[in-house]
């Protein structure tokens, strides 16, 4: 029996267990959308393609499954670029489909033609322009495999209209023919590295584990990490992407390190004699000036991507593989340790330098809002964030205890990410409370997705930490540019309550600290999207802070 490309497309999605996708149609996608009309796939219509891809990304991060999105040719495709780059930087498995003009119209500046294949090369793990329907199924199988295997990442498939309409014989299930890689370390060298790491752990007096997003992505890696940390009594600090990889309520937890990390995490890294990096990439927001980072320590790097080893910092030993497997192996092999002196030194730092913020009479502290969201959800919520101060306060004050519950654009720092990502996360995990901790600037970058949330009954809560500023940029202007607030005052902000109501969501305005807890309770009780507009202290800053390019143990704090 002959089948159109569009039919093969839908069938192949179903073969990959896709039951949800996010997208926005257009002329060249009509054959596929016609096929989706009666397909058993829930297609969520976003209000901007960027909303669709961030939602697919949030869905992927919350569930561990591949997120799927689709956009039409030309402007639809280019609207995906920020979302692709966001997913690429944070290694998120997304498969993005774009419609394209028919093959005979390619390359002649046809209506709504954009070279999304060329445009997306630097922001995807891999990409395809499918020119023959006979290749479609095979390409889709490869794409789903590539997106989720090894170090995950976004894959884009560009689909000309005629490829969707041409009929071909039903293609068989393809065998993958992707080039195979030799393992990075040969068995002898691998053994040598493993023994070296075990002896480094044995000899260490002041070890620290530095865990990144790889621990979240590798299923069950967090369990092995906990076992390793407890058995060898090694304190654990996580990156922004690693939040949830180790319970921040645990006595061995140092919280987050880096530019806005805790003092005790940064001190521990500065003073440790062994640093074990796992699934982390020594990002500049973590290391500050790399030559000053963990200077007293031997460095061990465990990662799935050999190219990350030695990229920023030279290491003393490394292993390549899934974080789960490597951590399990170490947890099995390592000898129990105590490190009492080191642990008590850290406890002292924790007592001396806790995270703290000023409590001003009658003024809502943004940190207090985050703390209350933590309290009222008993730490069980999935948190997404926008970018800026809101993101850092969320990271500091919401204690994450489980993987896939703290979802944020770490690598690219994409404003407008958090809200659509929350929609995707809630659709993927309908039983969880999902909060987007937002800034008034960021929220307005994808505010149109309120329609998506309301129409599809996606019960997400948006907590705007409304300071009337592009807060994080203003903070830098305050600290490093003589308080010249150039273009960071958000004059002309809308009435967020009316906006929410206009879309059919509930809006709650909160102007007094004593109203914060009840507003959060009420939002949780509603089974409907809710926007809570918290009018917070407008010039509050995120502290501690490592000035850019500095050493991470030299941190600024507020002047009391």
């Amino acid at each position, binding site marked *: 029996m002959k089948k159109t490309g569009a039919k093969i497309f839908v069938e192949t999605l179903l073969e990959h267990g896709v039951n949800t996708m996010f997208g926005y149609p257009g002329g060249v996608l009509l054959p596929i959308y016609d096929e989706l009309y009666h397909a058993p796939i829930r297609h969520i219509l976003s209000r901007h393609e960027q909303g669709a891809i961030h939602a697919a990304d949030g869905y992927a991060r919350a569930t561990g499954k591949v997120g799927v999105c689709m956009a039409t040719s030309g402007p639809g495709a280019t609207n995906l670029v920020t979302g692709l780059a966001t997913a690429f930087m944070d290694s998120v498995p997304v498969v993005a489909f774009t419609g394209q003009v028919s093959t005979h119209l390619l390359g002649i500046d046809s209506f709504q033609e954009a070279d999304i*294949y*060329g445009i997306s*090369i*630097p922001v995807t*793990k*891999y*990409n395809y*322009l499918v020119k023959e329907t006979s290749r479609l199924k095979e390409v889709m199988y490869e794409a789903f495999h*590539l997106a989720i295997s090894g170090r995950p990442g976004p894959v884009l498939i560009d689909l000309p209209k005629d490829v969707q309409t041409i009929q071909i014989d039903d293609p068989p299930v393809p065998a993958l023919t*992707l*080039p195979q*890689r030799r393992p990075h370390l040969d068995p002898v060298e691998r053994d040598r590295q493993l023994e070296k790491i075990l002896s480094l752990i044995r000899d260490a007096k002041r070890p620290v584990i530095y865990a990144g997003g790889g621990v979240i992505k590798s299923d069950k890696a967090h369990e092995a990490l906990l076992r390793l940390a407890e058995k060898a009594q090694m304190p654990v600090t996580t990156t922004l992407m690693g939040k949830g990889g180790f319970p921040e309520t645990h006595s061995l937890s140092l919280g987050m390190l880096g530019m806005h990390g805790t003092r005790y995490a940064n001190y521990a890294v500065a003073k440790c004699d062994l640093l074990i990096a796992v699934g982390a990439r020594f990002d500049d927001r973590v290391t500050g000036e790399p030559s000053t980072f963990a200077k007293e320590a031997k460095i061990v790097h465990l990662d799935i*991507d*050999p*190219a990350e*080893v*030695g*990229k920023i910092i*030279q290491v003393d030993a490394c292993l390549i593989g899934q974080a789960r497997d490597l951590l399990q192996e170490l947890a099995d092999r390592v000898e129990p340790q105590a490190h009492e002196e080191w642990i008590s030194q850290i406890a002292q730092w924790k007592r001396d330098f806790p995270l703290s913020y000023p409590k001003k009479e009658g003024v809502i502290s943004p940190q207090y809002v985050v703390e209350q969201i933590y309290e009222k959800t008993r730490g069980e919520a999935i948190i997404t964030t926008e970018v800026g101060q809101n993101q850092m306060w969320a990271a500091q004050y919401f204690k994450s205890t489980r993987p896939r519950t703290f979802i944020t654009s770490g690598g690219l720092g994409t404003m407008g990410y958090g809200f659509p990502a929350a929609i995707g996360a809630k659709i993927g995990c309908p039983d969880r409370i999902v909060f987007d901790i937002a800034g008034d600037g960021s929220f307005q970058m994808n505010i149109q997705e309120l329609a998506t949330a309301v129409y599809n009954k996606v019960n997400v809560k948006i907590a705007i930490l409304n300071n009337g500023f592009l807060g994080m940029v203003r903070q830098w202007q305050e600290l490093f540019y003589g308080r010249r607030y150039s273009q960071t005052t958000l004059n002309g902000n809308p009435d967020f309550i009316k906006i929410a109501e206009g879309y059919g969501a509930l809006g709650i305005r909160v102007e007094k600290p004593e109203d914060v807890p009840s507003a959060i309770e009420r939002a949780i009780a509603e089974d409907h999207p809710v926007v809570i507009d918290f009018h917070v202290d407008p010039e509050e800053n995120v502290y501690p802070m490592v000035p850019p390019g500095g050493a991470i143990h030299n941190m600024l704090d507020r002047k009391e």
Partner: protein
Amino acid sequence: MRHIISVLVRNHPGVLSHVVGLFTRRSYNIESLAAGVTENPDVTRITIVVTGDDLVLDQVMKQVNKLVDVLNVTDLKYDQAITRELAIITVKTTLQTRGSVIEIANVFGAKVVDMSEDTITLELSGTERVLQNLMRLLNPFGISEMARTGMIALAMKSSE
């Protein structure tokens, strides 16, 4: 330090963009790049000359190796590789200088492939050094046009 990196890739229309894009994106310095099919029509060999210290080379190799289309990456050592470049050079001549240019060409084994009243066009393949030496000698006459291929290279089997 200069390195010759030999990359075998699956042969398809987008593959060069992927490889070249990686170099620009990660700001590695490419000195030359030459691509052509191998004994296997499905496989292209890309020969890339890059400059950088050992750490840069290590990163380049690892990043290139990550590209989905890449089948193999090798760092060819200069002294253990056969390297060639091809150049076509048009030199300005007069009746008086024509003989000298042909003499130089002969010494280098360059072929005269075209001649007009006031030019001679030569073709030479050789190592980069030989090409440079030839050019140095031709420069005083005035080189009016030149095209070079970029380096191609294979490992020397006899020194393995």
